[in-house]
């Protein structure tokens, strides 16, 4: 005799207050859980969290650091989100970031010298093209041969990152240097700093707003959402799905490539082997937590930038670096789990005929919402 079981049901609607409250509750839960590690190591949790928050979000120097750390995350988050909007898994933002930096870096370091604003604009587009072309490989394979884009974009990461490594350790390496990086790009190509903050933030805001408007108010945006919700409907309606796969993945790659642009021209001022530094993967988390809303992505990126940025200041309090990593991990897991409960509810049911019927019904509705695959 079956006693009962737990199942997860997808929620149809989530109220706005719940959407806002949910992450707050789970961030607090994350704090409570990580308090265990902190107290087990003989530290007081409240001052630790207090210092993390006050330094990385309320202190000027700390906030600037958080925003600068968030910049590449913003573009990678946008990159992953636009693909998710069509049920395409772009795991390759990391590699597209690298290719963008390579294309842009090639121009900045070895290309023709152009006058100041023009050179920056050319570099911007080259970074976008580099990332876009790299994603287009996966897009073409997906559109014409239905090759799984998750695998291809992931594999292309290794190629792009190793190529970046090769360039920075090899032909592009600055002379008399022991670290894998190029010389600095021409000074007139630097993105200006505004009170210590990279002006790339404005680029991020503009692009996020444009993307938001595109997805919400244009035919293209609407057709993308149709493809996401039902591939078959889209095909019946005559939406050119193949074309959309190519365009959306290329756009996704281009956005990741622009992360390379802001990082090279705004922050690092050279091309470096560790340039993407995992931002492409963090972008996946950001897109998920933001439910692919471009404006929310900006905010979530700053919060994750702040989380990264708070690591050093907690260590200054004497907390070992391993514990700091555990705090960060616990907070992340808690927030991601919270987002899951935002979308699904737990249903406890007994194994009786009625629930079986409910199960069948649910299976049916799941099939309806099928993916592009």
């Amino acid at each position, binding site marked *: 005799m079956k006693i009962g079981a737990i199942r997860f049901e997808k929620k149809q609607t989530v109220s706005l207050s719940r959407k806002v409250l949910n992450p707050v509750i789970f961030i607090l839960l994350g704090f409570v859980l990580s308090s265990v590690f902190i107290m087990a190591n003989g530290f007081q949790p409240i001052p630790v969290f207090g210092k993390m928050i006050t*330094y990385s979000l309320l*202190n000027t*120097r*700390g906030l*600037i*650091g958080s925003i*600068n*750390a968030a910049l590449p995350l913003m573009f990678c988050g946008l990159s992953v989100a636009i693909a998710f909007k069509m049920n395409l898994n772009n795991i390759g933002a990391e590699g597209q970031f690298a290719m963008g930096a390579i294309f842009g870096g090639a121009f900045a370091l070895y290309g023709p010298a152009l006058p100041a604003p023009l050179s920056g604009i050319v570099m911007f587009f080259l970074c976008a093209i580099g990332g876009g072309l790299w994603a287009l490989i996966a897009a073409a394979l997906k559109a014409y041969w239905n090759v799984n884009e998750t695998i291809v974009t992931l594999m292309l990461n290794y190629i792009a990152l190793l190529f970046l490594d090769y360039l920075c350790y090899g032909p592009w390496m600055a002379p*008399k*240097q*022991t*670290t894998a*990086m190029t010389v600095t790009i021409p000074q007139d190509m630097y993105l200006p700093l505004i009170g210590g903050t990279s002006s790339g933030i404005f680029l991020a805001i503009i692009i996020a707003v444009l993307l938001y408007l595109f997805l919400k108010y244009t035919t293209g945006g609407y057709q993308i959402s149709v493809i996401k919700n039902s591939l078959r409907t889209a095909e019946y309606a005559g939406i050119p799905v193949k074309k959309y796969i190519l365009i959306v993945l290329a756009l996704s790659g281009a956005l990741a490539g622009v992360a390379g642009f802001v*990082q090279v021209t705004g*922050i*690092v*001022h*050279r091309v*470096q082997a*560790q*340039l993407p*530094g995992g931002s492409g993967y963090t972008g996946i988390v950001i897109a998920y937590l933001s439910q692919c809303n471009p404006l929310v992505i900006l905010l979530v990126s700053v919060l994750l930038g702040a989380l*990264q*940025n708070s*690591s*050093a*200041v907690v*260590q*200054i309090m*004497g907390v*070992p*670096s*391993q514990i700091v*990593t555990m705090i960060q991990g616990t907070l992340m897991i808690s927030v991601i789990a919270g987002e899951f409960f935002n979308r699904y509810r737990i249903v406890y049911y007994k194994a009786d005929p009625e629930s079986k019927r409910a199960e069948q019904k649910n299976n049916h509705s799941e099939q309806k919402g099928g993916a592009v695959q």
Partner: protein
Amino acid sequence: MKKKWISILLVVVMATAFFTGCSGSSEPKGDSEKGALDYSTIKIGEITSLVVNDGGWCQATHQSLLAAMKELGIPESNLVVIENVAEDQTSVANAYNALASEGVNLIIGASAGYATFLSDLAASNPDIVVAQQGDQVPNLIGYQIRNYEGMFLAGYASALMAESDKLGFAGSMSEASVRAAINGYALGAKFANPEAKVQLVWANSWYDVDLETQSAKTLINQGIKFMGMEASSPAIPQTCQANNAYCIGYNVDMHDLAPNAVLFSYMWNFAPIFKDILTATVDGTADSSKYYYEGGDCAQLSPFNDAIVPADIQEKVLSVKAALDRGEIQVFGGELKDNEGNILVADGEVMSDEDIKVQKFLVENVIGSWK
């Protein structure tokens, strides 16, 4: 009534004792203002790429810093360490800004990869002295140790101990300071035995237990009994111990990892350099164009493993060390050839520090390639 007076008296006595006690303790402070420097208020930040008890490079740096602080009477609590800082701009900037907001006077960047980022950051904040391991870059005090001096002794001792002419060397990544270590070892071996040859194997990794185990095994399988290393994990000493071979430890004293295999260890000793930088920071004479490239006590040897190394060999090694310290032996002195037949330094001349630091060659008696 009597009790009341007694209590008042007690209070007076205690108060007097308290105040005189205070004035008594303030006297040494007056002394330090007059003469010696006051080290008690300096705050130091250290940025490391791994943890400070990694058993290798970071540990050597951290221990050196603690030793220098102890010598100057700086309490350990004045040091804040930020560990696991990756060699990218965001991570280094986060660490630097956190330390700056904490009000540190001196930052030590313990990994060569931080140089360019710290250089940019230091330019915006000249109040904080920054010392950086590795090459000389603008805005930072640079420091580096002539590791080839210690490695020369390692090679010298290995060649004296070995019955065969063939020695081994397990290298990490082909980088100038690593090549300097290999060449130092080979030249030391040659100094003891003109016929000595050094077989080189690369792990192509800074830290990898499996690859380093393979390196040691490859050498041992060729019949090599004595080897030097420029690698960070415990793999090489332990593989040597398991196969009745011997090695010279590296980074820190590796004796306890493999007591039957480690003859002695080459240890990074940054303490004299740090002591100088700390003093300059406190007395306000720190100069960011200063560069330390030190040998001698900085390229330190651990105590010998008496169970393996005979007393006469210990004496010989120490006398060669003394000659090195006095400058009587020049490791990269002529005539010096590389293993492709080119003459690097003519007879009677000595290679310049600039060339030593960026060296792209392996000396004549090394079997292997640096490319």
